[in-house]
């Protein structure tokens, strides 16, 4: 795996700012990204860890009748 900087933002806006730097990738569960990095298929220069950022795991109805599914919402939400 290539070397990279590991960033742990505390807020959503910090995360977006950190990931705006070219060569960055978001890290959440890692089941895809880390696998690809181990295979040398992708090699981001910095990982922005959003796995514990609050708010991204929600599934919520919107006022217009639609629904927002957070990027980190789980297939099987914790009961």
């Amino acid at each position: 795996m290539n070397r990279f900087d590991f960033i742990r933002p505390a807020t959503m806006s910090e995360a977006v700012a950190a990931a705006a730097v070219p060569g960055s990738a978001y890290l959440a569960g890692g089941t895809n990204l880390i696998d690809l990095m181990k295979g040398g298929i992708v090699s981001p220069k910095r990982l922005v860890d959003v796995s514990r950022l609050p708010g991204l795991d929600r599934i919520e109805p919107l006022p217009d009748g639609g629904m927002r599914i957070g990027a980190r919402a789980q297939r099987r939400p914790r009961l």
Partner: protein
Amino acid sequence: MSLSITLTINGIRRTVELEDPRITLLDLLRERLDLTGTKKGCDRGQCGACTVLLDGRRINSCLALAAGLDGGEVLTIEGLAQGEALHPVQAAFIAHDAFQCGFCTPGQIMSAVGLIQEGQAGDDPERVREGMSGNLCRCGAYRGITEAVVEAQRSLAQAGRKEAA
């Protein structure tokens, strides 16, 4: 860049310095903390041999960067038994010959413990097979594994009912 993380591993709080953010939870457990019960099979998230529970959920520890787990609670195969008393899933694996070479067994057992806690399979063998499908067994001990998980699920449910009564 050095990172410091604190993990609770099998009930014990440990602070670890990571000199490199590339270290996975699996390598941290095996190489740094001498917890070699968790096995490295494919190291690519395909075989499930490295399954541990993180905050009660099953994960492939080979795909989890330790740097991102600060504050997490990890349960490995070493933390299941209470002294000499085996966990019901461990006892059921022995009773049902649910292994041959044993390499995948720690991952199978941790996955079974997670699955039973999730309560999504009950004692339906077909759903147990589906819920355990992330854990490969090259010896092909699947029949015994399924029987063991079903039995452990029943005995744990029974124990839970007794406790609640």
